[in-house]
């Protein structure tokens, strides 16, 4: 059956050119058209998109012009009566793929809002989807109208989808279930067994516990040392060179989506817009989705006041629980048009070439490479003690630890932002887990578990290091709780995990993701025998015999020494030598970690999905000059 293109008999070739129309209508200046055409010659992108991205024309004017040119009526979906049963029949993904939103059906005529002139293929597919329709009436609208209408029509589904999609597709990988019954019974049994042992054999129990803690602590630290030393190898290798970046042609660049989840960030949203404007990527091939919660009108107003370019779209996240960043990202993922996608935080300052470098790494890499992690570091490292220690920690983590995991082919937990994805693979992985408060780390592990790989790109995003203790504790307790959740999720069947990913990867996962919160929890218990020994000397030998104290002292010196060594090592790549003395203060930093770890442990049982909000913008625009 042949498709029927109702309401229009004008072919594109016969129509007036868009540029000429806009100039005649006084909507743009001739030089702007000229400039856009030159840009089009480079990128191959459509003229309308270039004009929009350049801010030369308003979206509404552009689509009204197209409506005139195509001799089709114009419709604002925000003002139209939408028959929800019609779009629901064909579903959100197909509407976005066809750029056609059927919105009314009166038994005879089906009205369809479009943003591109309907191709014969589109018309045929619509006809097949609605075989009873005799007449299709097309009307031009804007992309934003379609997105708005989709969010309205599919609101309930979008909430469910962004919340439960992972659980429904891969329940065994979702943190929605905090503990399995088996995990909980095992843990409870161990606690009860410990109490019984304390009663019947307190000395042996204390000694055994002490040795266990020491062994775990030392092995976890030694593991990090080994991985970091492997990561040091990358010092002499640039994953992506500047020459490779320069050789990229704009017309070959794919469409890229940036997800920007923000919540209560009215104070810095404007700054964020400025930071993103420095990205070296054609604006017409860049889609920026700012994900704003429905109950956060202040941020929305602040974002509008920043007068962002037309490639920035605000996506309002319906108010529902859990109110987490991954849930917002999942919803944004439904609307992402880019072939690749990256996520940034509100206070991020990515290096301009980051998108291109990530793209090159994807192109150079194996097809199994589904995510590329950019390095993170801080622009306010010299603000106070906390920011200095944070910078040391991040430098070690992103410059040595993650590259080490990459080199050794070990599961890699992603960092919070600057994660670049192949969008289709991200959708296949069902996006982020909204119930996991370190959804990024979990996603990296899930990708690794599916034998996908994670790459590390040599481009840095500068963030704001937490400068206040309370804020730091909130953030760190969330991270540690997330690591606990991730550990629980992937150890629901430990033997299956080992069989699936192999012993080496399983051990690596245990030590890195499980070992991190465990060492923070155990560290105070490790200090106790040593402190007792200092204050009470031989009187403490009942609980901690000399050999146990020596082991603890060994860990204190060697374990902490190695941790300090790693932090010292961290500064060299970025030449932050002035931070070296602060590495010696690492044991004090551990106190804060341990405090946060115990807070996280309590929350794991009381508020497992609670997202401890980190306040940004505390240091203003302070930037390190050292």
């Amino acid at each position: 059956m042949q498709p029927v293109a109702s309401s229009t008999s004008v072919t594109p070739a016969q129509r007036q050119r868009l540029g000429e129309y806009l100039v005649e209508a006084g909507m743009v200046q001739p030089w702007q058209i000229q400039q856009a055409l030159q840009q089009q010659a480079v990128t191959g992108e459509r003229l309308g998109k270039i004009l929009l991205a350049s801010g030369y024309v308003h979206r509404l004017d552009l689509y009204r012009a197209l409506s005139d040119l195509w001799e089709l009526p114009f419709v604002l979906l925000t003002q139209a009566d939408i028959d929800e049963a019609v779009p629901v029949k064909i579903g959100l993904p197909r509407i976005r793929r066809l750029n056609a939103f059927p919105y009314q059906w009166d038994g005879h005529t089906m009205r369809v809002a479009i943003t591109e002139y309907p191709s014969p293929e589109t018309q045929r597919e619509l006809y097949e989807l609605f075989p009873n329709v005799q007449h299709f009436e097309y009307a031009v609208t804007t992309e934003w109208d379609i997105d708005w209408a989709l969010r309205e029509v599919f609101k309930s589904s979008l909430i469910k989808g962004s919340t439960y999609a992972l659980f429904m597709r891969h329940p065994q990988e979702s943190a929605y279930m905090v503990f399995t019954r088996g995990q909980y019974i095992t843990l409870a049994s161990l606690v009860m067994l410990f109490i019984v042992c304390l009663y019947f054999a307190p000395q042996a129990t204390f000694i055994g516990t002490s040795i266990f803690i020491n062994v775990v602590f030392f092995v976890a630290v030694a593991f990090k040392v080994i991985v970091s030393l492997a990561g040091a190898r990358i010092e002499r290798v640039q994953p992506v060179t500047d020459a490779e970046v320069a050789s990229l042609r704009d017309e070959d660049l794919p469409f890229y989506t940036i997800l920007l989840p923000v919540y209560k960030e009215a104070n810095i949203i404007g700054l964020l817009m400025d930071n993103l404007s420095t990205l070296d990527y054609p604006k017409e091939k860049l889609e920026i989705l700012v994900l704003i919660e429905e109950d956060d009108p202040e941020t929305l107003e602040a974002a509008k006041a920043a007068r962002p370019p037309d490639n920035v779209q605000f996506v309002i996240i319906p108010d529902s629980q859990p109110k987490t960043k991954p849930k917002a990202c999942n919803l944004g993922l439904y609307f992402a048009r880019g072939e690749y996608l990256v996520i940034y935080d509100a206070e991020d300052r990515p290096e301009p070439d980051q998108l291109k470098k990530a793209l090159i790494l994807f192109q150079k890499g194996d097809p199994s490479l589904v995510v590329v992690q950019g390095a993170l570091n801080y622009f306010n490292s010299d603000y106070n003690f906390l920011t200095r220690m944070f910078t040391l920690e991040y430098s070690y983590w992103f410059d040595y630890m993650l590259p080490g995991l990459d080199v050794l082919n070990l599961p890699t937990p992603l960092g919070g932002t600057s994660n670049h994805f192949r969008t289709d693979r991200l959708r296949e992985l069902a996006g982020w887990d909204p119930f996991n408060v370190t959804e990024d780390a979990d996603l990296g592990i899930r990708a690794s578990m599916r034998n996908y790989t994670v790459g590390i790109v040599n481009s840095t995003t500068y963030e704001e290091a937490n400068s206040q203790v309370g804020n730091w504790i909130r953030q760190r307790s969330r991270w540690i709780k997330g690591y606990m959740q991730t550990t629980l999720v992937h150890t629901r069947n430990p033997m299956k995990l080992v069989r699936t990913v192999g012993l080496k990867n399983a051990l690596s996962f245990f030590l890195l993701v499980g070992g991190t919160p465990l060492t923070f929890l155990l560290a105070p218990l490790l200090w106790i025998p040593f402190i007792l020994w200092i204050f009470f000397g031989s009187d403490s030998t009942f609980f901690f015999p000399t050999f146990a104290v020596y082991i603890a002292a060994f860990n204190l010196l060697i374990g902490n020494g190695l941790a300090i060594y790693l932090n010292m090592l961290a500064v060299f790549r970025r030449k932050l030598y002035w931070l070296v003395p602060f590495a010696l203060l690492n044991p004090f930093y551990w106190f804060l970690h341990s405090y946060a770890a115990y807070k996280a442990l309590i929350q794991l049982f009381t508020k497992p999905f609670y997202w401890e909000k980190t306040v940004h913008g505390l240091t203003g625009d302070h930037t390190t000059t050292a």
Partner: protein
Amino acid sequence: MSRLRIHLACAVLFACFLALVALPQSTQAQDLTFDALGYPQGVELMGLTASQDLFIPVNAGLVPEAVVLDLIPTPNLPEGYFSISSGDRIQSRVALPRAATQITVPLREARISDGKLQLTLEMVVEGDDYCEAFFLHRLYINPESVVRYSGAQQAAAEVSTFFPGFLDRVTYVMPAASEDAAQAALWLAAYLARTYEAAPPELTVTTGAASAPGAFERVVQWGGQGATLSNGGTTLNVGDLATARQLFQTDVGTRLAVSSSVRTQSVERSTPLFGEGAVTFADLGFDTRNIEGAGTISSFYNFSLADFGADRIPAGVRLNIRHTPVPAGGNGYMHAYLNGSLIQSAPLDANELDVWAPIRNDELQRDNNLEVRFAYNSPEGNCIRSVIPLSASIQTNSTFELISGEGVPDGLLRFPQVFADGFSVFVEPLNPTTLENAAHLVMAMQATTKTLLGPTIVGSTTGVEDLLAVGDHGLADALGATLAPSGTLQYSQLGTSINYTQDGAYAALQGFENLTRDILLLTSTDPASDEASDLLDEVLQPDGWYSAQGQLAVRGENGRAQVIDLDDPDQVAELDAPLRGFWAEYQWLIWLIVALLVLLLIIWIFPRVVRRQEEYPQYERLSGLEEDDPTVVQRPYRPAPRS
């Protein structure tokens, strides 16, 4: 920067960190507090001018670097200065502090002779009123003040230098418990108490291998032949009793180590102090005492009855004093007090005084204090700086006149005088713990007297005279000093009893006279346990054997030692502290409650973190959000070959 250089730089920095961590510990090992050096009460300077000499031991190889003094002045102390000198060289002179402060005085240039450093602390305060100054102007030097040493101790090259000026611990090692080895240990204990009179080291006894001795530690090992050194001069091997006797029971022995503040003297029992029924102050180790001042000035002499032997007591003291004449218009008197009781008084009407003071038996105690006090009134008054002071010199030929007899009371106060002529030691079973307890008792008693105590180890309690016995309560029964668990303490053969409460294990220290012999008895329920050691630790706190009073000290399983006085038959001693008893009795219940609470918590949390099936989302498909998109290929959750 190359990777190698980076690692090298980090390694160097890390090494620096380790050195920083290790440095304070090594430094601390070379520091000694005044408390450890024999000045547990600190030092107090009072008046307008005051000074005191300190004798600081300096082990061979060590160099006293500095002394860190914690100075605590009385409020509103007038201006003045505080100086520290060594010999004729002033090491430091500072203004008197207005508040508590710490000063560090370098000692590198200080003079050391005979292994000791003499420091003179002097305070001079501005003002004229001596009387006011004596009461109000004081500078206290805290016993936590520290002498800081550098260098490394030299190992002893020969036996005579084996015991350095200061020791913290001596470990006695006997490969197997034997009577000979035990005998040597007891002699060693007495020797250490005499040698390190001001700050005796801790003595431990073991049958196992001793750990490597620390900076201020030595090991005495029973074995080998004669007396030899090993382990780089830190271990003294004693091969036989003859050698042990020569080393530890005679003056010759090893050269007497430097004591910190008091000159030590030991006396062989074979040559008693008193030849003709009298003993001079010089024989007791007292130097000529020179005192100067106006108003009331005193000099004190501490002595114990044991200093005179087992069966002699002083009947009087003859004081030989030279003094400056009392100016016309003034007056002066000498008063002699024994344990606070005036025993004699005489006017200072010439320039020499030879006075006899009788001593009654009831004025004597085990440990005595003789005060020679001068009350001098200057014609100008006593409180002005320009007053001509009285100078007096108490001569060393002053004597105690002795008579035969016993002046000792009952109980623990009989000791060590009754042991002064020798005593037997019975230890059952003979193991490191019981021997160590016996050695501690010998050591504590020896520290109170200048008479050389001569313990003789014996294998039986029969056929021996005065006895120190260590064992279990069966030994107490055998010696007629049963502690009945029924609540009544009985000395069966003395017919004395007191009430007390006692449940479970306990240890007791008893001093009593049984027929013709005096017995000091330490018993415990389990001699291999720490019961008796804990009891001794508490009884001997804080002043060693001086603290041992009364007739009986008992200690329950968890309580503190209680000293019981037989003169008060109605007293009841609670041996177990109620709180500790509560824990011991209800420990199981407390644990049970804790376990139940944890179990309840686990049950309460369970539904909050473990979801039930009915809590899962009740829809299987996300309406309108999924499309059979051929571009999305679901990857299985299983491994695939990596590239």
